């Protein structure tokens, strides 16, 4: 078990499977009508672990739509976040943790079980 501490921008507790993405832009990368990523994976009920954001001002609406359409991730954990993703997570009430060192984040692999507890991210291994 390993624990990382970041900053809880949207507080919440959840447990789920990690979906690791290097750089995420919700607009263009994620389909809000089925939760599919461009690479074929799906974000529904996963905990997205993304190293950094790629900007697009429509991103907030996509995050909100994922929630409304029932395909939202359980939480989002990031090395670095930005206002568009933060706004989306607040509006959709999806827990968001940022400010975790990317090198530490790399220890979390796709499919690992993780727990998000406000500012803490726990890797169950």
């Amino acid at each position, binding site marked *: 078990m390993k624990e990382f501490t970041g900053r809880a921008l949207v507080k919440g507790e959840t447990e789920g499977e990690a979906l690791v993405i290097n750089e995420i832009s919700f607009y263009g990368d994620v389909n809000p009508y089925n939760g599919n990523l461009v690479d074929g994976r799906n974000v529904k009920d996963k905990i997205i672990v993304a190293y950094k954001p790629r900007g697009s001002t*429509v991103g907030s*609406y996509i995050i*909100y739509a994922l929630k409304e359409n029932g395909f939202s991730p359980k939480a989002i954990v990031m090395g670095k976040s930005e206002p568009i993703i933060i706004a989306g*997570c*607040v509006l959709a009430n999806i827990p968001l943790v940022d400010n975790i060192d990317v090198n530490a984040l790399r220890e979390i692999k796709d499919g690992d079980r993780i727990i998000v507890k406000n500012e803490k991210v726990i890797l169950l291994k």
Partner: protein
Amino acid sequence: MYLTKEEEKILNGEYGWGLAKAMQVIVSVGDSLNSEKLIGITHAHISGVSYGNIGEPGKKLIKQFSDEGIKFSVKTTVNPIGYDTLDYDAIPFTKIDRNYIKGQEEILRSLQKMGADLTLSCTPYYLPMVNEIKIGSSVAWGESNAVVYGNSVLGIKTNREGGPISLMAAIVGKIYYYGLHIEENRIPEIKYKVNKPENYEINEVRASIIGEIISKIHNNDKPPYLYEKLRNETTVKEFSASIGAAGNLAMVVIKGITPIKFNEKEINETITIDFNDIKKREDELKPNDKPDLIYFGCPHTSKYEIEKIAKYLKKVDNLKTQIVITSSRNEMSKIDKDALNILKSKNVKLIGDTCLIVSPFGYHGLNVVTNSYKAYFYLSKKGINVSLISLDDLEEVLRL
């Protein structure tokens, strides 16, 4: 961040879901930026209102706030949409789908119900209500060209509040104290000069190329200082738009234009841009063939610019190229009658409410000439071939 008792109450939902949600967005983003407090705004300008851009998700979110009975707490104006609300077929080579119009109308209804003034323009700075805003006031604007113009020309303070953030700020009437709201962050540290021959005029295309160059090389938290004379309003506007499109800057201190006090002697770094580099880019971007369409109005044209175009066209006998002008209803309502008649006789499409960039306009391979770097920047991404000329060189293009 520090919150007043009243702000805490809003955040905790004592005034309902909608206000609490909007406050949570503003506070969370503010916290992430390590902002110390919230400040009041006097005006909000909302971008991201086009159905083509925000789609069903955006429509639904705005409607949710509107259905809740939420009202904007400050004067709020909105960006253009993808078509002319009085003439759906006004944009050449473009068919607007019925569902698109239905979706857009719903967005506009929601915004109006919340108290927005449906100005549908990207040049809020031409509106009397915005011109009345006092220098130094804080606002929350979401349209990049307006953000740059507001900070750099009007001397009002705003960061680039993208996505739903300007909408949320309009609801709570506040924004995080951060970035350009803080006086000292507006004082430039690097000066940009142009090395140029005598009589070299900086028109709007050249100014926009300077904007592109500065956006690429400026590597400092404070706004750049442009130590050059920009010859007219069109030039200042297109320069602001190019700065907004080509990078992330939200302000440029422009010599003789920006209302700001600072000690020039304290600037110890000067970067010189050579006019040959501007020329090289100008040559790359200039038209070689007869265009399918000539476009003015990104950002929206002023009454003055429209009348200037009409004056040029009056001298042209056999106009074969379709000219398209986009503007705001407010400016269009002020155009001189003679100018309107000329435009009509030349079959010029004068389109209101519209941004060609967010509209379904255009197709791969269409040849467009414009004076707007911003239009070049975004329309090129749609596969349209865009080249640039100054409005003052319109006659030259018509000879191609």
